[in-house]
């Protein structure tokens, strides 16, 4: 049982949770994630640890509502308990002083990006962050990112905030302006695919953090498998970060759609029952 200490909405569909998890708070590093299960009948879902406080024994998660589990979590409040939280999982991000690093985050992908930005900055890098979302209210954690970045560029598809355009436009702007030694791109699969096609044009080594479907998160099932450079890898134990240029994006997106029908049905059912109980 892990108690929710604090909850804060960033937008209608995105919220931050601070959870009690003393051992995980002690062991976690940037890039790690946890698997949570809300209750006895819940599924196991992976969420990145976007921050942690070993003194207080807490970890921070930022969650976007996309389906049943995330919706149910967003309906929970401070004081409520989550049945299972296990981690930290995956490999921590490799951090070194590269020089100038371009960090691009799309949507809720900014949450996993934040601890990496922080660690890169602390390692002495110049960090330029590009935050992107469809519209103003989907831009999250801007102040937190700004605190550890030398510069922040905000992009929205509809131009409601920052500059109008896709994440790739913001990235190109930086790359054409100055020498970039490394890039980290985290967000929806499609955004990571196009983000890394952009950096590839300029031959800038790029890391992405993959968000495949998972079950156990310990290497036991293979649900999370992807092709990396033609070899099958398990995202939960071999990743979640990989060299973007080696990822088979089309296969990954195909695999992420495996349960679309079931997920959609379950979400509809949930919204209906949630509506009735109101």
């Amino acid at each position, binding site marked *: 049982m892990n108690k929710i200490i604090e909850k804060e909405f960033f937008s209608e569909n995105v919220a931050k949770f601070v959870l009690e998890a003393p051992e995980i708070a002690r062991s976690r590093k940037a890039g790690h994630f946890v698997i949570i299960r809300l209750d006895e009948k819940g599924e196991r879902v992976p969420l990145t640890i976007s921050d942690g406080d070993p003194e207080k024994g807490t970890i921070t998660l930022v969650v976007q509502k996309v389906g049943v589990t995330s919706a149910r979590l967003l309906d929970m409040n401070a004081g409520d308990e989550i049945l299972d939280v296990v*981690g930290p999982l995956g490999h921590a991000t490799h951090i070194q002083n590269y020089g100038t690093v371009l960090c691009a985050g799309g949507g809720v992908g900014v949450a996993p990006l934040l601890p990496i930005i922080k660690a890169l900055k602390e390692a002495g890098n110049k960090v330029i962050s590009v935050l992107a979302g469809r519209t103003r209210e989907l831009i999250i954690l801007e102040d937190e990112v700004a605190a550890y970045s030398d510069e922040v560029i905000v992009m929205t598809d509809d131009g409601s905030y920052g500059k109008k355009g896709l994440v790739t436009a913001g990235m190109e702007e930086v790359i054409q302006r100055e020498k970039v030694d490394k890039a980290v791109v985290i967000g929806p699969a499609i955004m990571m695919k196009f983000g890394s096609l952009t950096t590839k044009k300029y031959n800038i080594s790029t890391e992405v953090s993959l968000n495949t479907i998972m079950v156990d998160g310990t290497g036991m099932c293979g649900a999370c498998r992807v092709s990396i450079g033609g070899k099958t890898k398990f995202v939960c134990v071999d990743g979640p970060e990989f060299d973007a240029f080696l990822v088979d994006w089309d296969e990954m997106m195909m695999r992420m759609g495996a349960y679309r029908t079931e997920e959609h049905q379950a979400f509809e059912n949930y919204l209906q029952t949630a509506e009735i109980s109101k």
Partner: protein
Amino acid sequence: MENIAQYILDGRNEDWRVELRKSMKAKERTSIVRVIMPEQDPNVRNKNSVEVNTGITEEMAIAEAHRCLDCPEPTCTTGCPVGINIPAFIKKIETGDFLGAASVIKQTNALPAVCGRVCPQEKQCELNCFYTQKLKKPAIAIGNLERFTADYERNSGKMSIPDVAKANKHKIAVVGSGPAGLAAAGDLAKAGYDVTVFEALHEIGGVLKYGIPEFRLPNDIVDVEIENMRKMGVKFRTDYIVGKTSSFEDLRADGFEAFFVGSGAGLPRFMNIPGENFNGIFSSNEYLTRVNLMKAAHEDYDTPVLMGKNVAVIGGGNTAMDSVRTAKRLGAERAMIIYRRSMEEMPARAEEVHHALDEGIEFLNLHNPIEYFADEKGRVNKMKVQRMELAEPDASGRRRPVPMEGEGAQFDIDVDLVIVAVGVSPNPIVPESLKQLKMTDWGTIVVDKETMQSSIEDVFAGGDIVRGGATVILAMGDGRKAAAGIHKYMMEKVAAN
């Protein structure tokens, strides 16, 4: 004479045993026919998840016990990896003392209700029974009697909790809650240690819970055993990955003085053939975990699982049988085993293969998949298989399957779900977090065969992480040996201080 343990030979001379032997002529005993385990009708059970075997009655158990000759050299015992005093417990059954029989078994086997259901008896005790070896008749149904005894004790409400020695305040950590970890924890608790079992998943039991299905091993049975261990003072921490949540160093700092690693061989292998990452192709671990651990087939649970009409399961072991029979129960019209060797070479328990055949599972032996195809959405819809034949025996004496040539040697089968059950590899989490640990090239932990001590003094290991994919009883045997090894290590350590 094979090395039959002295305690087994001694027990045979007790007065009651001598009397009992005389009470019926050997000829009469051998003329009784072997008990038949009652089971649910195949066409009913292949649609439900209730246990297939319904259990033998007291009368059946007593009749079967009469068959046993209480041999002067009970060779059956040489086939039992944990050295159960087989004739002693069978003779207790013959006298109707079922609780007495249970206490005999529990001297050496901590989980008899589990072993009675899942041990490959036909390759162990029953293979070595006098009936099989010399009389060429069906062996004494040792497994069925073990299951009966354990169930009787559990249902009697008089299940005995083993005596626990005075608490000695030394903390021991057990990593993994499969049969190896549970057996080690039980023995360590008995010896008075303060034992905590750490488990990565949200459930205790390892493969017994997430792998072996309800229709073969009901979860309730495992839970009773776990409850008894709690009563003995064993503590359980779920959602705790040793090496990730805390390092071994952290746990040492928290006061743990020795470790037993029973982290299993949980990593699924794939065949690395084209199309294997299409949707609808699972490892058996994923399929069984979704169904057994996450209860995906229950309406009110959130985890989904893909359903199939034409299901192919690749492999010939217990995992393959469990997967294919699960798929049948979830509504597959065609559920088939695809295995590259012949029926005789299948590693699965004989009973499971028979049950699968009765339930309408198809067997494509001497076939091997070579490629998968998918529809435009990426869902598997076809597989190409290769016919195989067995070559002359090689140096190891095993006949290797080789591809056939010519017309019809390869053909396509329509499938919408494929489950790959071609084996597992050792779980790498512990070795990765203990860099000094000595490992084999196969990723298993190197241990001393007697004490189960690894290359690191305070770390002991056993079960599948030492053997690769093996069996429940071998894992338990290792756990018990390691508990003894840890006890010896601790005594020496205490004496030295």
